[in-house]
């Protein structure tokens, strides 16, 4: 395993999403999920994040956050803006997470970032329209 994964979201939906993904593809290594609740000590979370990334043998990291302008996104940007080994992607969803786990041993961190953005976009569909198209 060469790429570490961190998921950070408002509330615990990131943790729950991770558990849903593992329900489908089994337990995953080198992944951490952080939940940020109201009134949380953000300095503590920053400390934890820095510790994980600095004290780990893994070289490259993908951080998945929920919304682009939220606290999780801002914390990560402020910590890792200048660190080229860390990519930060917003809009985490189950498809992006599954894609990430399935390709993280095969691609570089930059390629993975592109791939998971592509796959998350693709997973958002109007299913009734798709049904009509496919039925033709």
């Amino acid at each position: 395993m060469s790429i570490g994964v961190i998921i950070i979201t408002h509330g615990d939906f990131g943790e729950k999403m991770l558990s849903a993904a593992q329900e489908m593809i089994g337990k995953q290594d080198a992944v951490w999920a952080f939940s940020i609740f109201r009134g949380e000590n953000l300095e503590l979370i920053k400390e934890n994040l820095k510790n994980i990334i600095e004290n780990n043998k893994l070289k490259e990291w993908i951080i998945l956050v929920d919304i682009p302008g939220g606290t999780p996104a801002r914390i990560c940007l402020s910590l890792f803006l200048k660190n080229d080994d860390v990519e930060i992607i917003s809009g985490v969803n189950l498809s992006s997470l599954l894609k990430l786990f399935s390709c993280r041993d095969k691609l570089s961190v930059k390629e993975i970032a592109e791939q998971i953005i592509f796959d998350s976009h693709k997973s958002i569909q109007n299913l009734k329209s798709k049904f009509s198209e496919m039925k033709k």
Partner: protein
Amino acid sequence: MIVVLRIDDRLIHGQVVEGWLNCLRINHIVVCNNDVANDEVQKTFLRMAVPENIKLSVFSIDEGAEKLNSPTFKNDRIMVLLSSPADVLKLIEKGFIPPKVNVGCIQYYPGKKQIHQAVSVGPQEIKCFQELCEKGINVEIKLLPTDKGIDIKNLLKNE
């Protein structure tokens, strides 16, 4: 070649698509199910659930037995999906003998007995599973390829 034959009453779902296809490099899913084979809407639902690069065939049990026995798909890596052990027995009756049977999700409803986190069986299913075991076919509960398989025989000992 048939890489895995699975009983799963959800047929194609997240665990199958995300958990099995990639891991075993499956490129063709063959669903054998009489209801779905005769229902265009259900068939389309299944097609929607399969990634674009994976082939999907939906057959009735009779058709399925014939196709699986023929060399038609010999170059594909196939996952066969059936919704019940009774359907596996029907496949066998029609002449297709699976080397091994994988069991995924079989849902609970009142009157059934839960024998595993994801598998519940009623009297009919118990009978069918026992029949499969008696035929010498290895029947293993294994939700994901990375899970440790459990021989269903051990869970049905007291039935």
